């Protein structure tokens, strides 16, 4: 499903070059539920952004579904982001002037699904998140947990192969966090690969496999007790 080999990534700011990912090797199978842990600045977000084709990498390769994700045209990249990947951000990243339903429906807009149909599908997903009554609320009228569930619904609506979540519970209290994790488990049980970046041990313990990043390489890996 996901295959990384000798993946390198540096940030260049002015004259400084910051080597963040230093030769990552990683294979993730379809249907896995994985968490990525590591200290702050270890490159977790960087890794996830590369996986989500939101950022480029320098060396090595990244294959998604056996396709090399390198030097993609913007159009191709957009296609993969739209069809293969769902992204959940720590800060939700909902569009502020669209209501919950429209936010969830947006990926389908870029697939050319008609307005009526995509709004209907969005409502179904919101229903699954227990947010049907909030469909016509604007993001600023929602709580953090609600916004994150809207964002998760949005990441799911295009039926991606993989959902990437960067600290999805970072802005939530512990009860809400656990609810969100239950949701991810449920989504995962439908066969979607899920990769979650987190700081919190009890979050990572809800996943099947835990990867520790340190200094730009995978330091260790655990299969969770679940």
């Amino acid at each position: 499903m996901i295959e990384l080999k000798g993946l390198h990534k540096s940030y260049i700011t002015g004259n400084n070059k910051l080597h963040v990912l230093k030769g990552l090797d990683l294979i993730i199978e379809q249907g896995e539920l994985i968490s990525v842990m590591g200290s702050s600045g270890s490159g977790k977000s960087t890794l996830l952004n590369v996986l989500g084709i939101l950022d480029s990498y320098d060396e090595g390769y990244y294959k998604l579904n056996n396709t090399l994700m390198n030097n993609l045209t913007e159009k191709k990249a957009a296609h993969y982001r739209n069809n293969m990947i769902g992204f959940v951000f720590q800060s939700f990243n909902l569009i502020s002037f669209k209501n919950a339903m429209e936010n969830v429906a947006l990926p389908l807009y870029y697939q050319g699904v008609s307005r009526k149909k995509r709004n209907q599908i969005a409502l179904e997903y919101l229903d699954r998140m227990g947010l049907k009554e909030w469909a016509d609320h604007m993001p600023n009228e929602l709580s953090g947990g609600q916004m994150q569930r809207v964002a998760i619904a949005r990441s799911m609506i295009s039926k991606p192969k993989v959902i990437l979540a960067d600290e999805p519970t970072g802005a939530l209290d512990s009860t809400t966090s656990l609810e969100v994790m239950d949701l991810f488990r449920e989504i995962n049980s439908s066969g979607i690969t899920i990769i979650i970046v987190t700081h919190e041990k009890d979050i990572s313990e809800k996943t099947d496999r835990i990867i520790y990043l340190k200094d730009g390489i995978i330091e260790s890996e655990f299969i969770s007790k679940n």
Partner: protein
Amino acid sequence: MFDIDKWQEIFSTIQKNKLRTFLTGFSVAWGIFMLIVLLGSGKGLENGIHSNFDADAANSIWIFPGQTSIPYKGIQPGKYVRFTNEDYERLKREINNLERISSRYDIRGNDLISYKNEYGSFGINTVHPDMEFIENSFPIKGRFINNIDIEKSRKVAVIGDLVEEALFKNGKSPIGEYIKIQGIPFKVVGVYSENSNNDGERRRVYIPISTAQMIFDGGNRVNNIALSVKDMTLDESKQFEEKLKASFAANHNFDKEDDRAIFIRNNQENIKEFQNAFQGIRLFIWVIGIGTIIAGIVGVSNIMIIVVKERTKEIGIRKAIGATPWSIVSSILQESILITSFAGYIGLVLGVALMEIIAKNVPADSMMFKNPEIDMNVAISATILLIISGTFAGYIPARRAAKIKPVVALRDE
């Protein structure tokens, strides 16, 4: 290209970002509005002042005899200059760029004119055929005085449409009827009208000068000569005037520096001066108009840059969920085109409406302001220019924003 769903998406974006929409639209609407008001007012002013000139040919020159004021070759000042047919013939020979010429003899006595039981007093003008073009008195029925009338000294008359109205109350066509001038019947051969503010210009009766001189004891006397020459510059026109004066001075024995011996009214000069003045005003209006448009362009451009900047994060989000760069650029541009077109239209309508209101409220006989016509081509071109520049101004930052990596766009706050 016409994708309803895309337009719905754009409409909902516009609806939910009212301030931004208003700002973009306002600079366009204001620019167009100002341009129209400016062009309309300029035109109104020009038309108003132009209406002060009577409807005579713009390049006509009128020569009237006067009284000498400078002694010349032993002749005391105070001598009356008298024009004769010879002056008319001489000018006809001497002026090589002559276009039209007509002399006039003023009939003594009353100017009462009658037709059957109707009568009234009207200006009687004795003329040559060319007067038709010098006065711009074009026949609407029948014909004007012609050369045969002059040669044969026919008793024919061409009357103004207001004369017809006054005398021919029974609705009968005046052509072929006889009107009486000082008791002498003249056959009406034509009715003319003039495009003029001044009713007096349409209350005249033209008769051949030769007939008038013969019947009303004129001999070969001429009271004034009107002529027009082919287009001249202001300088040429002034020189021409000098030459005219010299010619009369030589033939009538007066000092050519004497400015009371004959009088020359040079419409060409007046109109040229007016035109020069208006060229200045027009230029001024254009400079301001172009300035307004440039301000509009700069305004739209700035707003588009800010709009795109403001939307960077949104663009990042859209890209992260699969928007292609083109879909982003095109939706920003379509939004901008929609807003600028609509705003341009509003500006156009408001500007035209204001000019209409002004035009309605200016008194009809105003000598200052009249018919503030707006050149729609200019207004529409200006709107299109603003739309294009708004689009262009939006394109560059939109293109840049759509190209940046989603991570970078998302980090934007």
